[in-house]
């Protein structure tokens, strides 16, 4: 081990003053608050929201200010840790650029000119626009599109806009995230399952970068277990560095590796025969198909660039292991074969018998929460969604963004879409081909954005409603995980800053303002409602029909939680959630394994195996009917090919970034201030490119300029840079102008089984400026 001396010595060369009056402004230097010596301060249990994991923590509050976030040892999911982003969550609350009060646009869309208004003025504005739009559309509620990225309150939001307001058009992040994985698992084994990483003694990961994109408990289980880890990735990530074996691979060819594993297992009868006999449906079809296609390791070597002897050996090691797991990933969709690739991984696990078993894909047991009943109106004129037309399966919940956008832009949707409610969803950065998204937004008559920071999408809004951060509100209780299930409660740490509100309070105000005027529109066009009014009178029709849109929010979230939790689980559980943030049946028996790392459920109480009737579906009839492969198959079009002088652009992220949501976090900016484009070192040398040179990257849709990072960690025909940079919004002072945005240049392509954007199908050229 060498201790390289780099950092501070250079400051010693110059004068002290040079360092004291460095480039940082005084206020920027002081964003961290030292915790005091005081023992007796408020420590509030909360659940993190900087990424999708929802790790548990305790917030230290001193004189009304959050001074520190600490990990919560009670949570089986996050196991007493907070990652860098979780620690930096404080900076989101105290971000100077936060949206502080409601705003209404006065300039052109995208120009960024707004005037400050009261909440009532904002609601009034929205009401006037919606009344006009719904009048024009004769009460077709689906003309209002509403979308929401990942998060606890998504269901609250759906209850309002679908359940109460009656729109069928909800879109979420699934089609630019992992719907193919969820779908492939459900269709193959009947459940999304959960991967028992801790119980696995041999794990293969294709591309999922679990150490730079931390998922709890998976990443933690990987660190703390002694399993053999094999990583396939077209880029040598930290996960690859930490793996026992790293296999460099061509992008989009993991399916070939999987098919070959299946071939070798079937040919040599390495699979779990007893399991296959008991659970497989159409096993013979699978066997005939795979063997007849001759997916040998030699064949796979040509497709993947992984040596055939390694494929053979790893397949044998995998099937000989006691608890092998092919990790299904949690990641955006890469290539057009993505659904088949995810499905092949599920089939490999099934062939090894690693389903509903320790170390495999487990079904487990969820702690069920009783739903709150709401009275949903019936809107006769509200039409159905159209974004799944032409998609084989697709998610009925979150739909397909790329197909939706294409249909609206091409005016092939069955009715016009005129209004958009956007929450926690940075459309202007989150999907390929940003110019198309901009055009889509420009077509709207009304855009309302609910958010915390003025991201690029906020600047397209007509009305901006400031939402509070996760540390300023209580959210509805959530049930987590299925192997070691628990309940978690996000308690309110401090009151909302400025004029920001929780989503429930925003919807309550909006609901109150909209209920009567929108009811009148329905009364004008909806024949069923007209009959009802005739029969029962307007007041009764309104009340009994559920047209009071604010009904769900009559009681505050803390009141609803208290009632729900106590009635279903009792006061002890409620107290545990309020005081410890977490409850599970063995919470008082938590055992320390070592150094503040714990065992949560006793081994014999974990839900490794549950009673379940299910089949492993080898053959999907519906796919065959729609002209797709009913059994995973390699097609020539999947071959990895890049034209001469071009590079395949792949994307990913840094450990300190959650997409664009952390782009303005001043603490995290310390680690990755900009993104850089990874270019193979030998290629870079030929092109005369050195680190930090400005590089122009051009695709068929647009171009970006980004600094170079030549490295041997990437293949010669690939370039990579991280998502989450290249923010345009000048109101995000720390983020704007730093690095480049991948979605500026990624082409709008999507697969047709789940309607998901394929992120790794774009070729680019690069030029040193």
């Amino acid at each position, binding site marked *: 081990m060498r201790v390289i001396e780099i950092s501070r010595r250079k400051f010693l060369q110059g004068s002290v003053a040079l360092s004291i009056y460095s480039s940082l402004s005084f206020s920027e230097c002081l964003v*961290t608050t030292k915790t005091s010596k005081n023992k007796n301060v408020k420590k509030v249990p909360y659940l993190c929201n900087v990424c999708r994991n929802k790790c548990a923590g305790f917030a230290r509050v001193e004189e009304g200010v959050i001074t520190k976030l600490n990990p919560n040892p009670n949570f089986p999911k996050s196991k007493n*840790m*907070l990652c860098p982003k979780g*620690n930096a969550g404080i900076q989101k609350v105290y971000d100077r650029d936060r949206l502080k009060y409601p705003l209404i646009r006065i300039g052109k869309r995208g120009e960024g000119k707004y005037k400050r208004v009261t909440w009532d003025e904002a609601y009034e504005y929205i009401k006037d626009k919606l009344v006009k739009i719904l009048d024009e559309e004769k009460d077709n509620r689906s003309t209002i599109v509403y979308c929401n990225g990942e998060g606890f309150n998504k269901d609250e939001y759906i209850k309002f806009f679908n359940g109460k307001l009656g729109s069928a058009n909800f879109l979420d992040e699934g089609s630019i995230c992992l719907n193919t994985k969820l779908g492939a698992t459900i269709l193959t084994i009947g459940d999304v399952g959960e991967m028992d990483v801790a119980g696995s003694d041999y794990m293969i990961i294709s591309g999922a970068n679990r150490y730079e994109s931390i998922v709890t408990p998976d990443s*933690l289980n990987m*660190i703390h277990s002694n399993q053999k880890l094999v990583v396939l990735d077209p880029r040598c990530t930290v996960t690859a560095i930490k793996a026992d074996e790293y296999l460099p691979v061509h992008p989009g060819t993991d399916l070939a590796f999987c098919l070959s594993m299946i071939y070798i297992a079937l040919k040599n009868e390495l699979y779990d025969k007893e399991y296959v006999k008991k659970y497989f449906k159409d096993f013979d079809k699978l066997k005939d198909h795979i063997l007849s296609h001759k997916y040998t390791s030699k064949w796979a070597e040509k497709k993947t660039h992984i040596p055939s002897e390694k494929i053979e050996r790893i397949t044998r090691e995998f099937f000989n292991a006691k608890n092998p797991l092919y990790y299904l990933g949690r990641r955006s969709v890469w290539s057009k074969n993505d659904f088949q690739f995810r499905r092949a991984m599920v089939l490999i696990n099934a062939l090894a018998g690693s389903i509903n078993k320790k170390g495999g894909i487990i079904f487990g047991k969820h702690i069920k929460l009783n739903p709150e009943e709401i009275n949903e109106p019936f809107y006769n004129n509200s039409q159905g969604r159209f974004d799944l037309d032409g998609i084989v399966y697709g998610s009925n919940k979150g739909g397909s963004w790329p197909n939706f956008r294409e249909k609206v832009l091409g005016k092939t949707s069955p009715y016009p879409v005129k209004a958009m409610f956007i929450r926690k969803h940075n459309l202007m950065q989150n999907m390929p081909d940003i110019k198309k998204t901009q055009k889509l937004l420009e077509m709207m008559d009304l855009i309302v954005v609910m958010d915390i920071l003025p991201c690029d999408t906020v600047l397209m809004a007509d009305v901006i409603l400031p939402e509070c951060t996760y540390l300023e509100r209580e959210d509805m209780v959530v049930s987590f995980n299925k192997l070691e299930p628990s309940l978690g409660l996000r308690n309110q740490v401090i009151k909302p800053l400025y004029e920001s509100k929780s989503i429930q309070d925003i919807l309550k105000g909006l609901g109150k303002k909209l209920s009567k005027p929108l009811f009148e529109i329905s009364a004008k066009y909806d024949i069923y409602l007209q009959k009802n009014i005739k029969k029962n009178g307007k007041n009764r029709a309104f009340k009994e029909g559920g047209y009071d849109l604010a009904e769900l929010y009559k009681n505050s979230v803390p009141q609803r939680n208290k009632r729900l939790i106590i009635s279903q689980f009792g006061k002890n559980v409620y107290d545990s959630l309020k005081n410890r943030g977490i409850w599970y049946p063995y919470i008082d028996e938590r055992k320390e394994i070592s*150094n503040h790392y714990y065992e949560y459920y006793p081994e014999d109480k974990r839900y490794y195996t549950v009673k379940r009737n299910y089949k492993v579906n080898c053959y999907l009839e519906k796919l065959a009917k729609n002209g797709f492969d009913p059994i995973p198959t390699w097609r020539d079009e999947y071959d990895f090919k890049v034209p001469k002088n071009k590079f395949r652009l792949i994307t990913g992220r840094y450990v300190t970034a959650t997409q664009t949501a952390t782009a303005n976090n001043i*603490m995290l900016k310390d680690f990755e201030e900009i993104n850089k484009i990874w270019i193979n070192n030998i290629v870079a040398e030929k092109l005369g490119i050195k680190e930090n040179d400005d590089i122009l990257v051009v695709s068929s849709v647009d171009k970006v300029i980004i600094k170079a990072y030549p490295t*041997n960690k990437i*293949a010669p025909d690939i370039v990579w840079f991280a998502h989450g940079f290249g923010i345009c919004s000048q109101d995000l002072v720390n983020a704007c102008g730093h690095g480049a945005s991948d979605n500026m240049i990624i082409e709008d392509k999507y697969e047709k089984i789940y309607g998901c954007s394929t992120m790794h199908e774009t070729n680019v050229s690069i030029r040193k400026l």
Partner: protein
Amino acid sequence: MANYGMAFDYELCIDCHACEVACKEENGISLGMEHRRLWIQKDGDIEGDFWNIDKSSVSFIQMQCQNCVNPPCLEACERKAIYIDENAIVRIYKDKCDLLLSCMKACPYDARYIDDTHFFTDKCIFCADTRLARGETTTACQITCPAKLRYFGDLNDEKSEIVQMLKKRNFFVLKESEGTIPKLFYFIPKNKEFAQKTIEKGTKIYTWGEMKPKIKPLNLKKI
């Protein structure tokens, strides 16, 4: 009255920066990479061309003040601003510090930086004036670490987890030849190949029995 030290199972580090952020938030450290009490040092190179890449000598090393038994910074300070506190932690009297920077030059570990809002040379003090001052027994970096690779505790307490671990596993220290006698210990990785690749040849491997007599605090001064 304790004799605090830290031990690292560096084999487990994934270079996630959680420790660095937690330290800054807990101790009110200024932004900027030049201001930091601790950092993770990437050691070793990724060798070969991409398709034949060899990443086996890469490791992530926890770097911070080594809380030496013989701290060169203390010896070097003309103002006598540096002292060892009752818990055997190397500390500084902020108001005595004139920023002559002799301590920074003397430190073989590059552990100190200039706190340019309070004008003294700061470094890791095991959260002595925040967490330890409140009676807590963990540091911010230790408790937040996803790998739980940082063991912290009283080296005089045979029952403490750190001593138990040091008894169980062999370890080495950084820059032993400097004679500083650091109280930060790096466990020999369980993976033998990783150990071989990441530990420099000739590095002395210690057992607790060998180390224990060396780490008695020498310059203890009352605050």
